[in-house]
């Protein structure tokens, strides 16, 4: 794999103001993403996992600049994106695309498939003649496993899996280099998930795409990703190559998360020791002062409640914990 840096995120923060009181004023911030740093290399798949509310979707949306970051920097191939205006950003929007979680909500029900895919071509003026535009739409549909007859239909005529393929075709239309996939398969039935995952892997090989694969389904993330980052309460708690992370987690949260994943094997499932976390994720409005995981961590000591551990290098991987697991 080539080791060219494609995306670099440094100390990224996305906070949402919470208003209240009278007169209305800002009374606090939901720190959805609270100081996240990582790098993505060309052609790889970086998995981002975490439970609901950990900030993984906000992170993905901030990278495609659907949200403006509160602080921090995003570099795409050496160019800093955070200070760019919407107009200056347009060429980068072509390079970074997104596929959304809900295939029922992310396609405009009043537009035909050809209009949905064609819109992206129009915005970036990627054709000379109408015939060329039409041909390109047909070609994209075939690339994702649909047929050209589908072009004039509306989204409601398709199943969930087919809609997700339309979403992928729309993202591909502008020939992106990086695609942020925000839970692209979690709304689909098991038998359809595999179809979509196979399409994604084929496309990556064919067009040398880089993926940011956001998901909560750990077994799928392990399967599809080269490297994985684990998020908890707006922070990255661990980063490692996928095979190593699943073999030997270093952060207590990762350990608990992995032990909670259901295994489709009755013998293994009954033998293994599960770490059942107590309590629930604290509110991101008012995160704990020390380590974000300290309130639920079975190994927490005094320092964990006082000092937030930084993300440290540990033998080629990274972990944010005062007492990483041996």
């Amino acid at each position, binding site marked *: 794999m080539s080791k060219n840096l494609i995306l670099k995120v440094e100390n990224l923060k996305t906070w949402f103001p919470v208003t209240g009181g009278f007169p209305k004023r800002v009374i606090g911030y939901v720190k959805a993403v609270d100081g996240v740093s990582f790098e993505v290399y060309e052609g790889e798949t970086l998995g981002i996992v975490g*439970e*609901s509310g950990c900030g993984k979707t906000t992170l993905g949306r901030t990278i495609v600049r659907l949200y403006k970051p509160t602080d921090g920097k995003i570099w795409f191939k050496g160019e800093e994106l955070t200070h760019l205006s919407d107009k200056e950003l347009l060429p980068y929007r072509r390079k970074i695309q997104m596929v959304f979680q809900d295939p029922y909500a992310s396609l405009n029900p009043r537009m035909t498939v050809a209009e949905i895919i064609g819109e992206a071509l129009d915005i970036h003026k990627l054709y000379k003649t109408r015939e060329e535009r039409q041909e390109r739409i047909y070609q994209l549909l075939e690339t994702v496993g649909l047929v050209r007859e589908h072009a004039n239909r509306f989204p409601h005529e398709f*199943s969930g*899996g*087919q809609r997700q393929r339309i979403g992928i075709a729309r993202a591909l239309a502008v020939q992106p280099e990086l695609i942020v996939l925000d839970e692209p398969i979690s709304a689909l*039935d*098991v*038998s*359809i*998930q*595999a*179809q979509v*995952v*196979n399409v994604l*892997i084929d496309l990556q090989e064919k067009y040398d795409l880089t993926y940011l694969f956001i998901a*909560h389904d*750990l*077994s*799928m993330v*392990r*399967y*599809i990703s080269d490297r994985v980052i684990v998020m908890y309460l707006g922070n990255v708690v661990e980063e490692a190559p996928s*095979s190593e992370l*699943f073999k030997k987690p270093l952060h207590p949260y990762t350990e*608990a*998360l992995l*032990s*909670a*994943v*259901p*295994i*489709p*094997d*009755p*013998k293994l*499932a*009954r033998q293994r020791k*599960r770490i*059942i*976390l107590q309590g*629930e994720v604290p509110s991101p409005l008012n995160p704990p002062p020390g380590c974000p995981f300290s309130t639920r961590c079975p190994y927490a000591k005094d320092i964990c409640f006082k000092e937030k551990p930084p993300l440290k290098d540990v033998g080629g991987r990274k972990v944010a914990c005062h007492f990483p697991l041996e």
Partner: protein
Amino acid sequence: MALLEVRNLQTYFFTYAGVVKAVDGVSFSVDRGEVLGIVGESGSGKSVTAMSIMRLVQQPGKTVGGEIIFDGINLLNLSDREMNAYRGKRIAMVFQDPMTSLNPTLTVGYHMMELLSRDPNLKTKKDKIDRAIELLKAVGISEPEKRLSQYPYQFSGGMRQRVMIALAIALNPDLLIMDEPTTALDVTVQAQIMELVKEIQEKYHMAVIFITHDLGVIAGFADRVMVMYAGKKVEEGDVYSIFENPLHPYTQALLSAVPKLDMDRSQRLYAIPGSPPNMIAPPPGCRFHPRCPYAMRICAKKIPIAAGTDNREVYCWKVFKEMGVVEGV
């Protein structure tokens, strides 16, 4: 005798577009203290099966045929009043979505008191409150005294599902039906809830029907598994043989569509081609045949009959050819 015996259950929905045979001739049984897992994708009829047992299927749906024998009595013959005496007391149900299955305008305590007023052993209000506190404690809710006067919105998803479980076990039912109780929850909370359900099942020796689309969730919990596809049972057997040696092509496909722990991207997942059938006009013969890699001519013509061995039931012509018919089914 089995605690629950469902025979040839047929629940149809009469829509303007046509008749949807959501459950079409399904038979199974559950013994006392046994955990039956029902697995299937959306539209397979697993939830409608559960609703039919509780007799909660609403218009335009109707159970048009079959028998539901619970402890010797056919529930389908009971009047609404008689059936109400069974709900909660003998058969209880936990629904999928903990966000919508509690009434948002009533306190959690009200939900519990309403149910506990049906328990003849609890005479005074204090008895009922004590029992409610005891139940909330049993499902792992801290500060139960305070929690009783709170409303559902003050509970998180996992906590609401715990309340639902407390309500379900309040009257010591013989059979507990759980319809995707952990689907809306995060994995770590799912693990908490599964641990709780296991503990309660063992403690009260309850029979449980556990409905899910996630094969992983059922593997560690069920004694027996029934796989459904498009309104029909396709396979049933004990949990070990289903997972180690799936016989129906659909079960095999489902198991190979999820990545195994030692798999990497060089091995592709098995993707079942096509999509689940339109239930208004399901394919003739075996409903899985248009997506089945082993489909033969007979599969498109005749509905498969039960094949397999005595503790295994498979509805597939290919298995029928290889193993022969099951005695007594």
